């Protein structure tokens, strides 16, 4: 489409405030910690099945 006015919206692009990166990365560090803590307490069903089967097979031998 020629002369698309949508391409002119929000131009010129604003620069991102420098302090925002620090805030975002602080959030990410906290999220990572919580995700890793959650993974310690969650049940990995796939892994349980795999280990059970492996255990069962080794007992049969």
């Amino acid at each position, binding site marked *: 489409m020629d002369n698309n006015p*949508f391409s002119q*919206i929000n131009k010129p692009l604003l620069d991102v405030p420098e302090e925002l990166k620090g805030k975002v990365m602080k959030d990410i560090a906290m999220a990572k910690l919580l995700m890793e803590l959650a993974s310690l307490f969650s049940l990995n069903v796939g892994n349980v099945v795999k280990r059970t089967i492996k255990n069962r097979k080794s007992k049969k031998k």
Partner: protein
Amino acid sequence: MQVKHNFKDLSDDELIEGIVSKNDTLLFEMLYDRYAKLVYNKCYGFASSIHEAEDLTQDVFLKLFVKLKTFKGKSKFSTWLYAFTYNHCVNYVTRNNSKKIEKQSVTTDNIGEDSYDPDVDDNSISMLKVEKLKEALELISPDERMILLLKYQDFLSIKELAEILELGESAVKMRLKRAKEKLINVYKDVDYG
């Protein structure tokens, strides 16, 4: 696979793979550097202030870190990120400003099905004036704004829109058509300058 020592050489897909497999915050920081300006400006389009745009951007990146594993690589990452950002903004605006939007949209709500112009096409869009268009976009619903921006600002195809919005292509075409018609009608009512 050749190990790339310079992270800047990594493609988006490689970067994402690294982030998802190890929750690597260093790689995520690189992803932020690549897309912060884009996300920030998209958020600004839905925000009522710079401060609100910053908050929205912060939220989008946090949500992105947690949900990055849901990106399956069916579309370009940037395309997926546009939709991800818009979705967050639309939900935010709908949740927080629903009453305000309802009030602003009162004139458009009165537009019945019969008043839709079936001949609204892309040529009509190209005739719009930028400042007036900005105002008109604020007066239509966030969902309509999102689909129009994805199509005409980010140039997503109908197929990409269907994938991203999890709709059929005919549903996308219908939503797009209605959004365009509504925009044109609202645009006519905007008293600018």
